[in-house]
């Protein structure tokens, strides 16, 4: 069965320190993965997609098929990075649906 696992519910990092939010997936097909971010009392926003290989707000994520991971990284944390982060897997079996992980709440300590 398809599944997205975010092992850390809470993560606290000092400002200026590196950030890594973990995401692992299980899916027998070709994975398409996303990171979404939800700032306090705001809607979910797409942060980045693995197929675009882009860097958004200093964040990057590389798909590692061998480890079935899609960890989100940023070299230097900023206070405005405090938010809820969701990893999501796109399933293309007939109907297109996003399966989300349980989320990681990132808190940046000033």
């Amino acid at each position, binding site marked *: 069965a398809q599944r997205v696992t975010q092992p850390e519910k809470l993560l606290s990092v000092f400002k200026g320190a590196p950030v890594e939010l973990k995401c692992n997936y299980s899916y027998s097909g070709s994975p398409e993965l*996303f990171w979404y971010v939800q700032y306090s009392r705001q809607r979910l926003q797409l942060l980045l997609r693995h197929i675009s290989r882009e860097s958004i707000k200093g964040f990057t994520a590389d798909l590692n098929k061998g480890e079935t991971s899609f960890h989100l990284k940023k070299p230097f944390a900023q206070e405005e990075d405090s938010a809820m982060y969701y990893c999501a897997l796109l399933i293309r079996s007939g109907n*297109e649906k996003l399966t989300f992980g349980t989320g990681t709440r990132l808190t940046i300590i000033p």
Partner: protein
Amino acid sequence: TAGITQAPTSQILAAGRSMTLRCTQDMRHNAMYWYRQDLGLGLRLIHYSNTAGTTGKGEVPDGYSVSRANTDDFPLTLASAVPSQTSVYFCASSVDRGYGYTFGSGTRLTVV
């Protein structure tokens, strides 16, 4: 650009009552989705619609129904609310495969 509009923003509902959560998009997206967000459980898909006139069940459809009479609107109805339906509900839409979803601002529902 409005994107996706959800109403109401929040609601307190007595158990056993019915309620319809509204979702409207102005982007002409074919696919629309309803998720519920619960602490520790993330977002779980309730129902979806790939195009106007069609709907499908997601991961947690029980107690909910949807309709898709046209491209823009995708209402979610709770026929007889129960406290376990207390949650934040997000509507989303997508233009095409692989581009990700656009989300509404959510409806915070409390069933008492």
